């Protein structure tokens, strides 16, 4: 088997190969390497397990300054929440246990009430904790989100978290590399969310297994950092543990001056290093894929896997449209769960709930996109509409622009920041309901027992909230007055 640990410094290399080799400590054989881990992020859902089991193992944190912790997953997002308010009594206990342990271990902590609190993957780039070329891990599959600023970031298990805490390293199998080039330009009204949903529809929910995926091409270069964060967030939804956009000037501009980013001479030194990281011309990947974006439409999922996606004006497929037996069975089951029939239109279908939140699509630009549609309009009668900003800072920035008033006047609930109803960690508000959602997973039961989730962009969710039925945001009638 070919070993890639000895690299000819002159041969063209990919971003991934450069960053991986800069973290390589030892070869453990069979393509498994011992890697330096630069940042560990803990949250109260998986991180509490890691901390408890580290304590039971009588080991101590190796590099506490490189460990960050936040309360986001099971905290209440009700307006005016208190520091111990969880989604239920056990959640409250988890929050308090995590708080005690994190403070005792001396990790940098963004507690409830801290203006820096928020969803881990929103907070991590926002505070400059994630940086280009860093290895960053968290017991959370959407850690790949922060690949958007050129970090090598991936989700781990809670036991792997113990290993990172105890040693500052991780044993990892080196993945293969894939480059996905987005060519052309995104049509007006089509967003990064539509792009990544469409990609997953094409490549399949398992298309990225075993790969580290670089997103490239003019469409990605033209994207803001926040759009890139949305794109990378869903790498794991096609089972790529790692997804990233190598850093460019936009990245540096975004990070400059953030609290945990380097300052002064160290900043200059870092930028010089970061400029060396992008993929060299002529470097090769194990797999390459090019997608033309110029005819892309807004996307919405119909089924129970992110690969069950279609153009918003399309119709629900039939099981016999799929040649693969496994896919066919999954489609049958998805239609039954979602209570849909082949040939139905999704556009025009009534929804019970419109949800804007999660590490996918709850940053300031997402809230602005939704607010642009909500301004001067009202949520349709009978639709429960909820907005949960991705971080306390996003919430404060949105309020400074008056976006909270736009959401509230339209009829949305305006929450404190947290992971809230992306997963169903305790609350049951969405049980049995049909939800159009800016989140990243439409799995059976993901948002609650028998909840039927349809994934879409913030603009589509806002347009749907107003119309009461799934609606293409480009076709919404003009607002009155």
């Amino acid at each position: 088997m070919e070993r890639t640990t000895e690299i000819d410094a002159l041969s063209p290399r990919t971003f991934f190969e450069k960053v991986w080799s800069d973290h390589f400590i030892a070869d453990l054989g069979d393509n498994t390497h011992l890697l330096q881990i630069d940042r560990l992020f803990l949250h109260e859902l998986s991180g509490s397990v890691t901390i408890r089991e580290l304590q039971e193992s009588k080991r101590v944190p190796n590099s506490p300054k490189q460990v960050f912790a936040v309360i986001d997953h099971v905290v209440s997002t009700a307006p005016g929440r208190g520091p111990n308010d969880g989604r239920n009594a056990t959640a409250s206990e988890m929050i308090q246990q995590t708080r005690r342990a994190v403070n005792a271990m001396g990790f940098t902590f963004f507690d409830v009430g801290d203006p820096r609190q928020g969803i881990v993957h929103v907070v991590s780039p926002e505070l400059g904790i994630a940086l280009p070329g860093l290895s960053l891990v968290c017991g959370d599959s959407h850690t790949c989100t922060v690949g958007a600023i050129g970090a090598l970031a991936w989700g781990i298990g809670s036991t792997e978290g113990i290993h990172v805490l105890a040693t500052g390293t991780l044993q990892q199998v080196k993945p293969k590399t894939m480059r996905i080039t987005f060519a052309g330009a995104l049509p007006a009204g089509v967003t990064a969310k539509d792009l990544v949903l469409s990609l997953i529809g094409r490549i399949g929910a398992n298309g990225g297994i075993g790969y580290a995926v670089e997103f490239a091409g003019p469409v990605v270069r033209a994207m803001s950092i926040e759009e890139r964060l949305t794109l990378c967030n869903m790498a794991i939804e096609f089972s790529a543990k790692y997804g990233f956009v190598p850093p460019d000037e936009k990245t540096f501009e975004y990070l400059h001056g953030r609290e945990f980013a380097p300052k002064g001479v160290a900043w200059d030194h870092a930028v010089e290093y970061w400029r060396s990281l992008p993929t060299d011309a002529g470097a090769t990947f194990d797999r390459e894929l090019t997608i033309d974006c110029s005819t892309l439409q807004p996307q919405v999922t119909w089924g129970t896997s992110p690969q069950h996606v279609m153009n918003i004006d399309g119709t629900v497929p039939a099981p016999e449209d799929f040649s693969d037996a496994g896919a066919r069975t999954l489609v049958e089951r998805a239609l039954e769960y979602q209570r849909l029939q082949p040939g139905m239109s999704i556009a025009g279908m009534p929804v019970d709930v419109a949800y804007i939140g999660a590490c996918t699509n709850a940053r300031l630009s997402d809230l602005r996109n939704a607010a642009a549609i909500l301004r001067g309009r009202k949520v349709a009668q009978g639709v429960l509409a909820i907005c949960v900003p991705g971080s306390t800072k996003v919430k404060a920035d949105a309020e400074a622009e008056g976006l909270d008033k736009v959401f509230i006047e339209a009829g949305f609930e305006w929450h404190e920041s947290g992971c809230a109803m992306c997963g169903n960690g305790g609350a049951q508000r969405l049980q049995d309901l049909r939800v159009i959602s800016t989140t990243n997973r439409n799995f059976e039961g993901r948002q609650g027992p028998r909840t039927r989730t349809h994934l879409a962009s913030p603009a589509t969710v806002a347009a749907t909230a107003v119309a009461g039925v799934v609606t293409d945001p480009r076709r919404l009638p003009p607002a009155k007055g």
Partner: protein
Amino acid sequence: MEQLRKVTGVAAPMLRINIDTDQIIPARFLVRITEEGLGASLFYNWAHLPDGAPNPEFLLNRQPWTGAVILLADRNFGCGSSREAAPRALRQFGFRSVIAPSFGGIFYNNCFRNGILPVQLDIDHIKALAAELEPTPAQGVTVDLETEMVSTPGGQRYAFTAPRLMRRMLLEGLDEVALTETFGAQIKEFRDQDGVRRPWVYHIGE
């Protein structure tokens, strides 16, 4: 790491693609302060009717699969959330091995660390295995990590390859952290050099 050399027992065929970790254990059961009792929540939404009563039609609620130790699945098993409660719930139910054509990467890593051997086999082999077991589902299948072989009651044998290091750790029940600690000198040497090359990694926000 919990040792595993060879497991023999009932294999439950759940041949569906993309079984995600939200199905293996829904998120509401992760809100807890002990890792005990996860087995009762395994596949909860499939294993229970809307009123909470056990679903008599669900595979693992039926004989002989209530005592299954091997799970047969289709591709991308364990995709989605990184929750380690997924392999833990499988282990606490009694599973020691999952056989599928491919696995979600985080779940795959988590399995080894919770006494579960994930085995990759071609879907045609898994279907053949399931078909062989159909008339006599209580017959034991063997997954042998030492010989890297799945053997059926009818004498079929399917070879697989486990990652070398994980294989050794499972066979010997090694502690992963202790293994890494034997590289202490190399870790220190790496950091001494890296601290010069990338000081901002270690001096945060300065």
